[in-house]
């Protein structure tokens, strides 16, 4: 098991957003999370990346690193948790004052303090992989949404994290730009990256995932293989959600 999360809870004021949930992620696995708006999907990803501070929960990693949020957590531990994973945002959040290339090298060069020549090579390879080598000297405002999101993916990959988190990476995109981003993610899935992927693209989730997890109201209602959860869901709430999203009327 690459990562097990046990008893994760998070509230905003009196709003209990995650209610004691357990999640397990295998090494090299693609885990998709689906669920209605407000069910806590983003909050779960943000807890894994330490952008939110859980109220409760135990994170255990394969390499023995573990954090129990019942205890006081140091800044170092937060940083260590965060550096395990890379995050791709719904709204890209590229650095607007840096070119595509500069966005990608920023982490390895400034945070990891790797050698300039090495980082340059890495960034060029990554931008090539996401199909943007010819655009590497453009600023974000000069790129389409799909291109910006691909730079966002390359920026996260450049840190060589053990786990990649995607929060609805295509939902801010025009329909004709979704494909190019999904292609990149599909390639990563094939390369055995460990990924947690929040999405409304049910068909795509079925295609690339090893495991699908359905969340509603701060609970994990159902999880299993894509066939189990997407084709023959056991829970009524899952059935209703899929009904609504697959046959919008």
């Amino acid at each position, binding site marked *: 098991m690459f990562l097990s999360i046990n008893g994760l809870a998070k509230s905003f004021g009196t709003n209990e957003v995650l209610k004691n949930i357990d999640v397990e992620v295998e090494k090299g696995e693609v885990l998709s999370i689906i669920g209605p708006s407000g069910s806590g999907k983003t909050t779960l990803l943000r807890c894994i990346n330490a952008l939110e501070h859980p109220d409760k929960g135990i994170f255990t990693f394969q390499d023995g690193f573990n954090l129990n949020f019942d205890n006081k957590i140091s800044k170092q531990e937060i940083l260590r948790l965060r550096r395990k994973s*890379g*995050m791709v945002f719904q709204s890209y959040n590229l650095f607007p004052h840096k070119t595509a290339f500069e966005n990608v090298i920023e982490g390895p060069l400034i945070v990891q303090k790797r050698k300039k020549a090495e980082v340059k090579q890495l960034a060029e390879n990554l931008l090539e992989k996401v199909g943007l080598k010819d655009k590497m000297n453009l600023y974000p405002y000069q790129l389409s949404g799909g291109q910006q999101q691909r730079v966002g993916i390359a920026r996260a990959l450049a840190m060589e994290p053990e786990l990649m988190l995607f929060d609805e990476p295509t939902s801010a995109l025009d329909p004709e730009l979704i494909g190019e981003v999904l292609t990149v993610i599909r390639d990563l899935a094939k390369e055995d990256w460990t990924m947690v992927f929040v999405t409304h693209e049910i068909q795509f989730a079925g295609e690339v995932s090893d495991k699908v997890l359905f969340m509603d109201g701060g609970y994990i209602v159902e999880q299993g293989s894509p066939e189990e959860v997407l084709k023959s869901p056991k829970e009524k709430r899952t059935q209703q959600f899929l009904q609504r999203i697959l046959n919008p009327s």
Partner: protein
Amino acid sequence: MFHLNNMLYTISANMEGWELFVNSLLPMISGAIKYTIPLTLISFVLGLLVALLTAMMRLSKSALIQAPAVIYVSAIRGTPLLVQLFIIFYGLPSLGLTIDPFPSAIIAFTLNVGAYASEIIRASILSISKGQWEAAFTIGMTKTTALKRIILPQAARVSVPPLSNSFISLVKDTSLASLILVAELFRKAQEIAARTYDFLLLYIEAALIYWVICFILSLAQTALEKRFDRYVAK
């Protein structure tokens, strides 16, 4: 006869006026170069450092760190600059602390710029979206690194126009230093006018020199804004 006399008088007066104008140019420009410009530059640079520190303190979560910054900004903004200058130069000696005119002026203007610019810097930091902080955090940056590499460079762009305004105001405000005996541009004008009684001419001349300096600065502002705008959609 009367007409001719009058005309001759006017011409000779104009000639004298022109001569006075040209002769005063050198002392006034030298006052500008020796005092007005250094006073402006030094106070502005030091003021920006004070402003950055003050802005950081105001953005801190701790009320204990915020409080001195809030009081400082409020006191400077709530009192006239001229009064602040007089307190430092004429007031402090009674506490046994005598400071020369030029350093007194530097202190007063630095404190002044520090207070006003801290509000500009704080507002421009707050104008950068939360997503930028988070993107910086997800690539492993600490708060300090994120501020230095991601937030401040973007905040700088936002704050160029208001900070340029402060800078140009400062150039003009340095004329107040004439009242604590700093031999800057306007004091030179006053000294010459006291001898020649040609107040209108000399004060207009001083005004023109300030105008030229500020005009050059506004060109620099435009160039700076252009440079920062390279990464935003037109």
